[in-house]
């Protein structure tokens, strides 16, 4: 019965899980990490220990919590109603991620359209910053060192191709899953992870290049701030996405998912496409224009 519960049986009971200790562990982990980070940032001792301890608890908690969810899913406890809950939940989560990036894109917009032109306006030019010109990329009037902005048509263009291709391979993998072609699924999922990892490799190379040859750093005024924070948070999300894809690949190799019951796969695919779209925006407004 459990095998067919997903699509056919009209469902009476929504799965309400039993009490569990994982959430409180997660809270304690976050607390330790926040406290540790505060100590590290202020050069007090012991911070790293607290962060490491918290992070280990967080990892353990995630293993156990996700493990429970995977067991329940494979045990047939999730029917159509639960599946729809996960879909709504993931959609709203992605909206919250969109809004997080929205804030940083807003900062970039403000710097380019408002603050840098304003600092070079007549008033400021005479009173505060003589000779400062409104030219983007700008590190602001108080920044003396020379730097070279990051061009769009080298590594970033290759990275765009990589991420776009990874979206295609992921869709092929999904078709493989839907059509019960497990070989195709595993192959294309693996390819997607490889493309994601290559992207990250290039990104690391680009950062190294920026720091060593372009003199472009996080501290390079508002251009450096927005460049590294936007691409950095994006890279962080790609890393998370790649880890999630890897977990999905391991699950695929262990024979998890059915052609009509695999929302975990789809959720990660949605997330991956979201990261993809953010990159396209980044490529246009951070690197290109």
């Amino acid at each position, binding site marked *: 019965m459990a095998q067919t519960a997903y699509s056919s049986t009209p469902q009476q*009971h929504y799965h309400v899980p039993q009490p569990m200790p994982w959430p409180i562990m997660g809270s304690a982990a*976050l*607390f330790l990490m926040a406290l540790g980070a505060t100590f590290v940032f202020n050069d007090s001792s012991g911070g790293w220990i607290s962060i490491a301890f918290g992070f280990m608890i967080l990892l353990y908690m995630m293993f156990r919590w996700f493990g429970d969810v995977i067991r329940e899913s494979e045990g047939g406890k999730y029917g159509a109603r639960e599946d729809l809950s996960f879909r709504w939940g993931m959609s709203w989560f992605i909206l919250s991620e969109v809004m997080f990036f929205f*804030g940083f894109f807003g900062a970039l917009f403000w*710097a380019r359209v408002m603050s840098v032109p304003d600092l070079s306006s007549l008033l400021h030019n005479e009173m505060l910053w003589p000779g400062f010109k409104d030219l983007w990329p700008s*590190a602001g009037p108080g920044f003396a060192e020379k730097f070279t902005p990051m061009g769009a048509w080298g590594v970033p263009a290759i990275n765009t191709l990589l991420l776009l291709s990874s979206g295609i391979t992921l869709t092929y993998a999904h078709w493989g899953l839907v059509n019960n072609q497990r070989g195709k699924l595993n192959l294309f999922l693996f390819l997607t992870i490889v493309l994601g990892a290559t992207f990250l490799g290039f990104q690391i190379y680009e950062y190294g290049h920026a720091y060593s040859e372009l003199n472009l750093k996080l501290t390079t005024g*508002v251009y450096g701030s927005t460049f590294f924070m936007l691409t950095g948070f994006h890279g962080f999300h790609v890393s998370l996405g790649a880890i999630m894809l890897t977990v999905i690949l391991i699950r695929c190799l262990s024979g998890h998912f059915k052609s009509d019951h695999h929302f975990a796969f789809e959720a990660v695919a949605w997330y991956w496409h979201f990261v993809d779209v953010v990159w396209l925006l980044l490529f246009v407004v951070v690197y290109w224009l």
Partner: protein
Amino acid sequence: MSAVLDDHGHAHDHHGGYGGIMRWITTTNHKDIGTLYLWFSFVMFMVGGVMALVIRAELFEPGLQFVNPDFFNQMTTMHGLIMVFGAIMPAFVGFANWQIPMMIGAPDMAFARLNNWSFWILPFAASLLVLSFFMPGGAPGVGWTMYAPLTVQMGMGMDLTIFAVHLLGMSSIMGSINILTTILNMRAPGMTLMRMPMFVWTWLITAYLLVATMPVLAGAVTMTLADRHFGTSFFNAAGGGDPVLYQHIFWFFGHPEVYIIALPAFGVVSQVIPAFSRKPLFGYASMVSATTGIAILSFIVWAHHMYTVGMPVTGQLFFMYATALIAVPTGVKVFNWVATMWKGSLSFETPMLFAIGFLFLFTMGGFSGLVLSLAAVDIQLHDTYYVVAHFHYVMVAGALFAAFAGVYFWLPKWIGRMYDETLGQWHFWLTMIFFNVTFFVQHFAGLAGMPRRIPDYPLMFETWNKISSIGAFGFGLSQLLFLYIVLKAIRSGERAPQRPWEGADSIDWTMLPTPAPYHTFETPPLIK
């Protein structure tokens, strides 16, 4: 399917595998979690309240009496943060947890484990805030709005506050995703969107606002953190950034936040007023569209908090008109509540008293908001006690009064016992009178030019401040009576009848026993 049924067949009145304190720590039950939220919120209300009393004690007389200016600033900052994020928001999430599943015929929240996590992040986040007092330099004294560049210069306590805001934001986002999913996916057959109780509607919109704005606040404080420690220049003009940028990002969150606090309060009042008027809510559909309208408008009015910061006149005009426009849907609501009472068979038990108190005082807060929305007037009143009076009419008389109304209204459903009606009425009148003694006079102090967030003031403001401080202590002490009333109801209250309020007709009253059993609606009811 049998495995699924096994989990639930023996589920009545057992609390899972844990007992004692572990029951509360590990619970996945929406009623337990709702209770946790409400008690946590009350504790934070007391903590934030004590800070408010420190502020009012210092302001009783001109000159410096009890605390130094730096500590005074820490008090105003922490009072604001704790009341907004620790007291009011969790209180309404507590109501949402208790009531939404029971009002839409769901067995629990959609993500019961996530629900537990949303709550249990809060005490840890609050600990970070409180710990900041013990850091070198103390807690940040930057104001709850945490404006740059002051935040960039603060000590270690600022970092703890930033991380606390991150955690509070995570909690809110997870809680909101849960509420959205529950309302959109867990309604019983026949419970269409337009049949939902108004309280559920307001939470649907509120949760959407939270998911859309909390991450923006997280971004803002992350930029502050980066400016503090990683050498970025988001808010540093020498690097091409702009401190005003912080204000824009903050208020893009901050203004919807006002409605995040106000909308659930509207929801509670929209349940209470019809029940004690013995009439259905007047203009249900217009209430829904007004709520939606307020939510949409709340995204395009943020810069009315920043008229004095330097903005093109076109910008000021846009934000002024957009802000004044919010008076329209808000007016729709106020008139609907009044029309609900019109020719109703009214009775004035404590929940109704608080709802009517809300109606009076919140409308006043709305009007003073309209005054402040006018850019030309706001330039005179910006950062004065007029603003303090305005937002306390919205936050205290709006949100807190509605929360009291909600507790008195639903307590019988939750614990199966009645509160002491006489004491409840005392609580209302003491709260009502002392609230106005505290805050009404602040309008005058503000109009006369008294700035806010200042520990000392010229002699000319003394009378207003004396009255206000006396009111504040009376208000604070009156809330101990509330604690006593709730404890008394829990320990020795009279048994509540099945439907203590004859006019309350949502399905939590009509289809469930009183008190509500530990698990409700495990099989969805059919709503006709």
